[in-house]
């Protein structure tokens, strides 16, 4: 309820009513529908549909590739954020702006262009394929697409933390005789860790649900390069709704677990921030 004694602004009833109505119509009702259909499944049926060999292979690829991509993002994202915040170099503002490019580019276009870059006759593939590095139609392709899609998360989570890091503490460590690496390992790294992990978890969560970019680059071969969201689409196209719902429940459950983990990480990370 609005505490009217502090606030004479009008429109709470109208805006709150519309917010709740629109939220229910667009988000909550579809959620409830899926949940009801899922609860209609018996546990045995659910387990059978959600754990077929093909589904297990798809989870392995989805979660494995997402994790590898998220770790790659953590490494390169930390490096990028560090370079962007700490160093002055020509083109810095340009690089800072293009980091968001994967957020702005439709995933279908990302998948299309990455598949073509890493194909045997592509700009990168013509050098990599002779070396045995195949980026198109392989699990590696899935990792490449997911790394592209998740790139901005770690950079954007880490940048404000790095900007607020107090230089004096590092200078103090240096004055007390710590070398550059020791200062980094013992002073800087621990205060960056929560933000890096938050960014990693965000990239991981995004990667698990990703579909658009991967269908172009992976080739979607069952047991080899087939991701879980693709399997859901396939089951839907066969009008096998129950199987699609069982797979979707597994993905949703994982997303919510991650959402919880991200919230905990953000609370942890905020303890390292000077109160704003």
């Amino acid at each position, binding site marked *: 309820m609005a505490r009217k004694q502090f606030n004479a602004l009008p429109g709470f009833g109208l805006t*709150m009513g519309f917010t709740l109505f629109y939220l229910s119509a667009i988000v909550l009702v579809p959620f409830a529908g899926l949940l009801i259909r899922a609860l209609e499944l018996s546990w045995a049926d659910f387990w059978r549909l959600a754990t077929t060999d093909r589904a297990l292979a798809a989870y392995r690829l989805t979660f494995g590739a997402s994790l590898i991509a998220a770790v790659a993002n953590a490494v390169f994202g930390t490096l*990028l954020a560090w370079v962007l915040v700490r160093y002055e*170099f020509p083109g810095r503002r340009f690089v800072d702006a293009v980091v968001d490019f994967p957020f702005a580019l439709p995933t279908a276009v990302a998948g299309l*262009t990455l598949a073509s870059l890493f194909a045997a006759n592509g700009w990168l593939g013509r050098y990599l394929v002779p070396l045995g590095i195949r980026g198109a139609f392989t699990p590696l392709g899935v990792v490449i697409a997911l790394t592209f899609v998740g790139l901005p998360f770690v950079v954007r989570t880490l940048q404000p933390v790095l900007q607020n890091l107090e230089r004096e503490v590092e200078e103090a460590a240096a004055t007390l005789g710590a070398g550059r690496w020791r200062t980094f390992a013992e002073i800087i790294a621990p205060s960056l860790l929560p933000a890096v992990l938050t960014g990693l978890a965000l990239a991981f969560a995004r990667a698990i649900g990703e579909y658009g970019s991967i269908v172009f680059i992976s080739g979607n071969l069952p047991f080899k390069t087939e991701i879980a969201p693709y399997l859901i689409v396939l089951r839907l196209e066969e009008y096998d709704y129950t199987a699609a719902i069982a797979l979707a429940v597994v*993905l949703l459950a994982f997303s919510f677990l991650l959402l919880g983990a991200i919230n905990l990480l953000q609370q942890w990370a905020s303890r390292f921030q000077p109160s704003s």
Partner: protein
Amino acid sequence: MTKWTLIAIALGFCFVFLLLPLANVFAQALAQGWGYYWKALADPNSLAAIRLTLIVAAISVPLNVLFGLAAAWAIAKFQFRGKSILITLIDLPFSVSPVVAGLMLVVLFGLQGFFGKWLDAHNLKIIFAVPGIVLATVFITFPFVARELIPVMQATGTEQEQAALTLGANGWQTFWHVTLPSVKWGLIYGVILCNARAMGEFGAVSVVSGHIIGHTETMPLRVQALYEGATKASAAAAFAVASLLAALALFTLGLKTFLEWKQTRLERLIATRVDS
């Protein structure tokens, strides 16, 4: 030494993962020459896809703007219990795989779905038709405007509105002449992000569209259909349509950078005024 090594690695990573994919889109789109590029875009089915994408964005973005304004007003200007739960619920679509979002709509409105029989009896089509595509897009882009507006409206507080009301303005006048101008840039920012995602959404739209050429194909789906044609000519046509989406991403990125630059300049201006 360390500095320039790190900068070199970061720039190399950005070059391979951000600039090459972008340049490749335009290079492949023009691989068959300008004449073919224009012909591919002027193809009736591609034009139909462009038109549908514009229509879908023109419906879903204003809906989410209306919701964003209402939600931000209720959340930022009033105190009530359950506020953090409401914010979490608004963010919910971010943690759902686009494919699962599409599945939710199929479960509600598909032929075997909750409302399927009723819709069929009244000759209404949502799934495999334009309304389904709009609903999927609205679901996916649901949080964008609200998320940008809530912090901006919270930061501006309620004093200005209280003053306007005391001076005799009514609620709507206060909103139009006081609140809206003060959140203008945040609103524009939310709209361009929402629009970019609406025009580029692939997974959710793909599940509900039915891929009827010339009727329910949006631009990203047209890209996929052309790519699966698997000839050199259709690949170039896929890239031609994709180049429009990539141009949209560049435009979005440019506008975003401009707005951020304007924002920091404004903050600096305020800071110097306060200092002097």
